[in-house]
């Protein structure tokens, strides 16, 4: 589902960060933006409320470089995590090539993680997609919380079949951020020309 621009010799991929409210999706993008050198990234666009909650989406374009004569680019998006913004979340998933599901390690967010995953499945279904159809990587964020739940417990509620690669993260410190992005990018690229 990548967008190919033969004329400009570009291949573009859309990667969406999904997950419950305040799980750290925007923090992931901000960290990436702060670490990627100039010239390899575009403007970061954030459509947020005054209290910095994502209202519609955050957007960050990244240039991977030129591969076999094709400029290869990733467009990173976050969705608004708050439950009542579902209409917006659904729109952002349109044309998605890969998903990072950012789960929250806080004990009181276990149910929110599960509900967000269920919501993601439902929204994908609206586009005729299943989670099995596209690369999904699970990032278990906020591992620095003193009462962080065991990763296995979070995995058990969002991905009981253990289908998705799992990365532990502390996005505020950048831990696990690039590892997660690299894995979803790798999986997305692996599908080029094979579908």
């Amino acid at each position, binding site marked *: *589902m*990548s*967008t*190919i*621009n*033969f*004329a400009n010799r570009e291949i*573009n991929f*859309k990667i969406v960060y999904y997950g419950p409210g305040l799980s750290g999706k925007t923090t992931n993008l901000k960290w990436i933006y702060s670490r*990627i050198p100039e010239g*390899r990234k*575009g*403007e970061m*666009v954030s*459509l947020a409320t005054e209290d910095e909650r994502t209202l*519609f*989406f955050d*957007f960050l*374009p*990244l240039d*991977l*470089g030129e*591969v*076999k004569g*094709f400029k*290869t680019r990733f*467009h990173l998006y976050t969705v608004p995590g708050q439950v009542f913004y579902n*209409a*917006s979340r659904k*729109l*952002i998933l*349109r*044309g998605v090539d890969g998903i990072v599901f950012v789960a929250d390690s806080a004990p009181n967010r276990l149910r929110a993680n599960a509900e967000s995953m269920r919501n993601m499945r439902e929204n994908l279904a609206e*586009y*005729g*997609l299943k989670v099995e159809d596209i690369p999904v990587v699970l990032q278990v964020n906020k591992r620095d919380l003193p009462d962080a739940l065991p990763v296995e417990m979070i995995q058990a509620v969002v991905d009981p079949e253990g289908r998705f690669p799992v990365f532990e993260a502390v996005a505020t410190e950048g831990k696990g951020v*690039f*590892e997660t*992005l*690299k894995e979803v*990018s*790798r999986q997305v*690229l*692996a599908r*080029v*020309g094979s579908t």
Partner: protein
Amino acid sequence: MVEPTLVLYGALYQRAMDILQDTLQETGARYALLIDRKGFVLAHKEALWAPKPPPLDSLATLVAGNAAATQALAKLLGEARFQEVVHQGEHMGLYVDEAGEAALLVLVFDENAPLGKIKLHGKRAAETLARLAEEALANPPKLNLDTQYREEAKALLDELFGN
């Protein structure tokens, strides 16, 4: 429905560029873009006299998001679609129209371009581009990228995101 991939290539791409160029001349707009519904730029033209445009990635992403939200609003109100969208500020304006199911025409114009011309020629261009997009969707070019592409891309991932 899985999102269709709209690819413009060769003669179709050239025709799209010609339409965008003609539309710039007829309307006096600064920039004309054809973007897909996912927010990727498929083709764009700038008037020779126009200053450097804003980042096109951001422009396309925001327009596509806005168009998707507008479409959802139309459905809420029982309409099949709201077609054109015009935003006008003190000096700059934006015209967005559907070019079929998979693409959008975007015209960025300043206060010297008459809105009537923008709407008239914008509508015509969007209709022509819609037919062109349909043609492109019906005959997608084959992407002959082999495993070497994936290997080289992986090496770049290591370079950009670390090992």
